[in-house]
Every structure is written in structure tokens, then in C-alpha cells.
């Protein structure tokens, strides 16, 4: 089972805009890009061709790991709006 299959079991109400805002300029010089590894919802993906970090904020499980792990300390991390984001039925 892939992570996409796992995420398919999660109930979301996505917002129109991202609640996760990394400083994309700083991401370009980040060596580890650790957010792309440790995020349990594969929110962050590095596009090598475009040299750009993609943020699939719709998948976010709101755990906060990226905020703490980011070596550039450059993720502006907020909760999604009140009625948006993830709803755990079996948390």
C-alpha cells in the first residue's frame, strides 16, 4: 500500500490557500530538504528541474513535524482555517 493509498483513507476539507508557507528561496539552498523525507503525508516534494519545493498542503495531517525539523527554520506554519483541514474519525 502506497502513502497515497493511506492518505486516501483520511477525511479532508481542503482550504483554498496553503497554511504551510516555506520560504522557497531558502529551500533552494537547503541541503537536506528533510521535510520531503519526514513529512508523514508527503506534503513536500522537490522538483529538481524547476528547483522548486511543491507543497501539497491538502494532504497535511497537521502534525507539525516539518516546522520543527526544518533546518532553515523557514516554514511559516499555521493551523488551517476553523472548518478546514483534516478530520480524524479514529484518532
Amino acid at each position: 500500500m502506497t502513502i497515497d493509498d493511506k492518505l486516501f483513507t483520511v477525511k479532508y476539507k481542503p482550504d483554498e490557500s496553503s497554511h504551510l508557507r516555506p520560504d522557497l528561496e531558502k529551500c533552494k539552498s537547503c541541503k537536506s530538504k528533510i521535510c520531503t523525507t519526514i513529512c508523514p503525508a508527503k506534503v513536500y516534494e522537490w522538483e529538481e528541474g524547476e528547483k522548486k519545493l511543491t507543497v501539497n498542503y491538502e494532504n497535511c495531517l497537521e502534525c507539525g513535524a516539518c516546522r520543527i525539523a526544518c533546518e532553515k527554520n523557514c516554514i511559516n506554519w499555521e493551523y488551517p482555517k476553523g472548518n478546514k483541514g483534516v478530520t480524524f474519525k479514529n484518532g
Partner: protein
Amino acid sequence: MTEISNNKTEVIVVGGGPAGIACAVTIARAGHEVILIERGSFAGSKNVFGGAVYAQPIREIFPNFEKEAPIERLNIEHKYAILGNEDSTVISYRHKDTDTPSYSVIRGKFDRWLAEQAKKEGVIVVEETVVRELIIENEQVIGVKTELEEYYSDIVVLADGVNSLLAKQIGFRDKMDPKDVALSVKEVIKLDSQKINERFNLSDDEGCIYEIFGGPMLGMLGLGFIYTNKESISIGLGVGLDALCDRKIKPYELLDELKKHPTIAPLIKDGELLEYSAHLIPEGGYKKIPTLFGAGVMIAGDAAMLVNNLHWEGTNLAMISGKLAGETAIRALVKGDFSEKMLSRYQKELENSFVIKDLKTYRNLMDEAHQRAESFMGYYLEQVNEFFKMFTTVDSVPKRQKYHKFIFDFIKKRNIIELFKDAFSAFKLFWSILIK
């Protein structure tokens, strides 16, 4: 109510988890006005944990919860499983304790029930509302700013969880370090109750807890868990975020490895994934407890990093800290004094309770565990399985020869200096836990 419509109340509690609900209901029972603000669409909808709550502390706040609340199973067995690559050693403690039991619950159901009870007792629960910042005037917290409006209160209690952005805003917390949190991922797997009973040797409504060491987490500060629900199994793991970063591990792949282990796989076989989830666990312990009070503000539960990770306790510390914050709030309201000095009573009460006493007892645990993770969470776990492999294998090699080889290998593989360092570390730790 007129005061509330003017956006001013006596107490605002931020966060509808166990800490916030315990706090709010304590205040409402004393006849004071309290608003509980929850960002999810219902209390519990943003919450994740392993699985079990402890009856005794909940009874202190909701004496009848065992009859009325949505409970999954009463845990009658704790299994401690040490996994090798293929093999495992499992120690099990079985006892049907109905005096101080633990129950598996699902937060989306259980916390929601707690919040419903709080509503019945006069707490005003405001859902789907995010508190974006605290309103501060003359160095005193006087209210909260949500997306839509400002609410004012005499006291604000922060029970906004492990990420507590509000505690950060007012400088109660330093920036968190990856080693101070564990990242947990969990899968809830549907399985019919008869299969659960057979696989875990249970009768209806009886539950079993697995605490899992080693396996794919070998050498890392991390543990796996299994809890049995009525008709599902919760399986997951929590690993230090620093270890995941250092080793560049995807947490869900680690869980996949755990699920494949020959000791674990048969337990969840043919189950259907109901829900995947993730959450952070505050693991900093006593040394990372933030400032707990200030003028007009107190902080409880995960937001205050109140987790006893060795004993898998969190919700109980959350509820008791919430209750104590609530009791201090009541005193402050009666006196009309919301100063830092008045609210300092909360910290004293916490220090006099098991909450801070226990965290203090284990104050050195995480430092030692981080330094010696490779041995305590790796080498020695491997050796437990090596020992039983040697002890149970019948191969016509004389036993004395086998013992000698085991001891020789045990010392050689780890080297004598490291063994002494481990022993010293263990001694230091036991001393600090048992003596001072």
C-alpha cells in the same frame, strides 16, 4: 449571557482535548462562565493518540464515564515485545484489573463525549474556530483573537496541544528541537471482533496492549504499539524526530516494516485500513516544561509538554493539569485577582501532584536515552533475542561451550569500555529515579 454577547467572559480555554475539557468543566461546575474554543469541527477531530485512557484520573472529573462514554475495550493484558529481524521475545502481564483499569478509546468519539458532558454542565463550546493570537495589554493576557473576532476574558488557559503556537507567541516556549518530540504514525485497521478475540486471546470487551521494541526501530529512540478496539486494531509507532531526520527515514515506511514483522503480521492479517494518521508527542520531559503561568494565562496538557513517555501517560497528565488550572482559575475569579502571583498557585499545585513529581523522577531519562540509544534501544535488545535463540536451540553442542560463546560474543561485540559506559549510565539513571 449578556457579557458573552459583548465578547467578554470570565475564562477562555483554547483547545478541546482532555486538558481543555477538564479545565473548562471544573470552572463551569463552580458556576463561572467559561468558553471552550476548538479548531476542529468537533472535539477530538484533530486529536490522535495510541490508544488507551486511564480510569482513575478520568473518574476524578467524570465519575460515571465508564457507564456512559464510548469505550472500546478494557485492557487486561500488556505485552512487551522485543523484535529481532525475524524473531522476538515477548513478556506479558495479564490481569483483569477493574479498580484502576485502562481502556482503549477512539479520540474522535471519546473527546467528543467529554465535550458533550462539559456542554451539559454549562461550558460554552465554540467549534471550528482557530485562535490566531493572544491579546495582551500591560503584560497581561486579556483575551484571544480568532479569525473573525476578538474575545476578552479574565483568564485564558492554553490547552492547544503539542504545537502550542500561542505559548510560543508569548515567549513561554523556546523553539522546539527535533529531539524533544517523537513523530507518531498510526493505522487503524478494521477487523471483526471475533478475529480480534482469537488473535489476542480475549473475550468480548477485553483488550490487549502491545509495546514494541526493536525491529525496524532498532537503535533509535522509538517504540511501536498495538491497541485493540471493538472492531479494529490501532497499530503505530513513535520515533524521535531527530532519529528520523538523521537517518532520513520516511515514518510510514518504518510502520510498513513493522507491520511485515513475522510476530506482528499475523495479528493484522486480512484487515482493511480504516484510517491513517500522524501526530507529534512531546518528549522533552521535565527539563523542557515551559513557563506554566503568567498574568491572566495558564498552560496545560501537551501544550505544557506534560507527557510521561516511559509509562505511556499523557491524557491523564493533561486532564489533571487542566483540572488544577481550573481550580486556580476559580480562586482567582473569587478574589478578582488575575496576576502572575495569584496564578502561580497552579504551578505549586502541579508540583505537589504526581504530574511534576513523576516528570522530575525521570528528568534524566531522555538525556541518557539519547546518548545511549544505540545500546539500550539496540544492542541489548538484540542480545535478548540472541540469548533465547541460544537457550532454545538443540544442536548437540555442549551447553557450557554455548554459554561461554554467548558471553564472549556479548563483550566482544560491544567492547568493554562501552559496556562500562552503559552500566554507568544505567546506574546514574536508577540513582536519579530511586534516590534523588
